[in-house]
């Protein structure tokens, strides 16, 4: 689907610690999400699309508030995709004046952590090839551009399918690198959260 998060240096009228992140809490959050997405993204989604996501995977949707105002949101799903348990980021929006402050990164990181804990093997999403902000954001999180999708959007623009592969048990990879020691493999601060797929 889409995301509007491009990192723009904006003069902040707020401190990052002023931002409050809340997990999707029920029907009262729905109009806030719809409002943000309708305002910022081009595709018209019916209310069924929103409900499809937030009712089935409420734990994967988050909202960001600043002084009581909803200024960003992320909507996701997860499930089996051709034998792989996969997370999918459907919508990610941060209002323009609040961009470039790491709010989108924080929102999406929260969702990805839940996906990882839930046993997802990978996370995917689509982004317009011209959306440099989103591409940079996801690149920093370890996503690669796995595919280019020709004329993906109705406006004729191509999309990238971005993919994040989570580390898996040693047996998955054909070589025995892990025994040789790979310092970066398995981040310490994530180890507590990390439950490889059984």
């Amino acid at each position, binding site marked *: 689907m889409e995301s509007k998060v491009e990192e723009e240096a904006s003069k902040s009228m707020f401190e990052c610690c002023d931002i409050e992140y809340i997990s999707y809490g029920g029907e009262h959050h729905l109009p806030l999400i719809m409002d943000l997405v309708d305002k910022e993204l081009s595709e018209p989604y019916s209310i069924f699309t929103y409900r499809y996501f937030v009712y089935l995977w409420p734990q994967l949707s988050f909202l960001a508030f600043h002084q009581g105002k909803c200024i960003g949101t992320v909507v996701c799903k997860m499930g089996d995709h051709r034998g792989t348990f996969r997370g999918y980021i459907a919508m990610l929006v941060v209002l323009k004046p609040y961009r470039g402050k790491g709010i989108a990164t924080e929102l999406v990181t929260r969702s990805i952590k839940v996906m990882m804990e839930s046993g997802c093997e990978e996370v995917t999403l689509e982004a317009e090839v011209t959306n440099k902000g989103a591409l940079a954001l996801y690149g920093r999180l370890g996503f690669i551009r796995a595919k280019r*999708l020709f004329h993906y959007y109705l406006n*004729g623009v191509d999309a990238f399918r971005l993919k994040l592969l989570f580390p898996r048990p040693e047996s998955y990879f054909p070589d025995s690198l892990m025994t040789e020691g790979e310092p970066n493999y398995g981040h310490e601060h*994530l180890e507590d959260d990390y439950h490889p797929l059984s």
Partner: protein
Amino acid sequence: MEETTLNSPITSCANQAVYTDVSSLLQSACEDLREGELIHAENFNLFAAMSALEIMDPKMDSGIIRTYFSVDEAIENGAAPVPLSLDRTTDVQRTIDIMDHLVACEATWHNGHSLVQTVFSCIYLLRTERTSSHPILHSYCRVMRATCHELISAATETQTNEEEDIFTMTHGLPLKGDGDDKCLSMLHAVDETVSRQLRAARSPSSKKRILEDIEPLQSNIDLEEGFCKALLCRLRFRKHFYHVLTCMRRPQGKGLESAGKHIVTCLSELDLMLKWEEFLKLNNFCGTDDNGRECKTTASGCQPVGFDSTLNSRLSAPTPPRAIKLLSWKQAIEYFRKLLRDLEVICSLTLDPILDNLLHFIVDFQKSRPDLVARTYLQLLLIQDGKLYGRNCIFDVVCMASQLPDSAKRHSIQNNEVVVQLGQLLLSLLKIICANTAWQRRKLGKILQDWRIIHVQLELAFRKEFGDLSSTLDDENLCSKICIHILNWIEELTYWIGSRFLMLGFDLELYSSSEYCMVYWYIYVILIKLAEKTHLKMISSSESNRRKGKKKKELLRDTLKDYRVPPSVSLLQCQIYVAEGLTLMLAALRNEKQTFQDPGLFNSEHEIFMQHFGLLQKACLPDHVFYSSFKEITSQASLPTIAMYNCFKDAQRIAKELRSSFSTDPVRMEELRRIEQVAERNDVALNVICRLGKLDPSLNVYFEFNHHPYFAIAVVKRS
């Protein structure tokens, strides 16, 4: 959430499509459900959720935005009058506007929008019979429709992939009308009439006109010549463009020469259309308004009559209608110019059955990013009736590609099931490399595995057919020769596919700069294997040629004396050096300056490696090459050592030596020149980094692709 199962008669007899009144069911559902609750059924997935429309929401309800309920209503309301005007000058002006707008629609259709929303937004085209009293418009509409039909049938035959299938969706439009096959003779008759009117307008005396009994095109004598000419180039463009398409579809490339001639005419008619643009602008009926001239869909700048893009909105359901932006008339002309040039390149193909040359041709052709139409016609030419160009048996092509003697082409092994499969695999490879590069790369990644499997299957099949291969290593034996040559060629081609897969990643911008190091390393290992297999093929073929009529002693002496690496292998060697040099330079920069690396929060370089090269790894391309091999080589890289063993210098040296070998091959000559530049610049950059790197922490290194599409050059700047 409540789980409700729908048990209506509709689901039980879906195939017979019986309509049932569901009002009461809906009523009870409404009473049962509270706000926000959804009916859950197994088939209500994301697609279903997204396809659901909110009635009366203008963003989604396709029925809500439209001017007329039907084509008939539009006609009744005078949206598409015939004649276009009672004033004959205005009638001609409006006819030209319709032609121009149709060309803009047509180009927009080719560029990925639906026929329904573009060409068939023309009411005249939806009801061509209404225009029969207006020969000019009538013949133009007919040939337009026939052209659309021709293109759709060509694209359908090549089985357009799902990404571009919108092109062939016709949504039940009236695409084939009775008598469309006569469109060319109608066009010819109209051309004749307008030509006579033009001749009459040019003749000094009006007496002649009376004598010849020619009614002028329109009422303003001063403008007669201009309008005649503006009309003629438009009519002729259509005629020749239609000819181009039909000629290119003749079997076995027999129409290519005439298609080439029609292309030249089309291009000159396009020039004339541009030449008469100013005239139409000055003499339009809608006044001079230069605002937004650049996005106008007609040469005159006037809005055309007879178009309504909302008329068919219900035809394209269930997709909600989105307003599309048509290309401007100028952009459309440019588009057709580019398309015709691409088609011209196809017509120049010599129908060479040597696979290597053909693969090079296609790769080179794809560099200009040809659109769906051009790629469709290339594929139609290449593959007809399961043969290359409709005339070369695939087994013959395989034999030639494997450098086997002609006698092999008659060998009964070609009827072996696995050999037949190999032929099919080759045909599908050709189709894939004719596709758009995004889809092409995905497919190439997938078929790597198939090529590995066919190699194993063929080895077994040969063994079954000819016995143990190792005992008949004697190259004189035709059977063993077929086995060895074909198996080696399959490996060579598999590595070629692998290298194409990796390099297309640059075209598609799939790699970020932190990934360049591993990408170049992978290109390096694949190219080494490719060079090895190519070399083996060439040695074995040149040896068997030499053996003819020579004694063993002479042979050995000659082999040592004449030995020279074939130029195509040296060119690969050149690329190998550049890839190696880039790998080591990037690795050294990373090791010493901590640049070009991106440790992520959730995964490591290992996962990135596996995602990018998983398909190659799965197909064991190459054998025994893993992430650990990459780490082993790159973790040791340091600036002082790579400066001493400078791969870029080796690349430059070979490139210089090779120049004379490719003097008759402009494409490879160009590649050589680019490689040489990349090597030279990287050599300089490497020296600068080595000299100043340690001392100057402000030194900033980044990579650019301005000399070669795949091989980057390092740019060194002070930050």
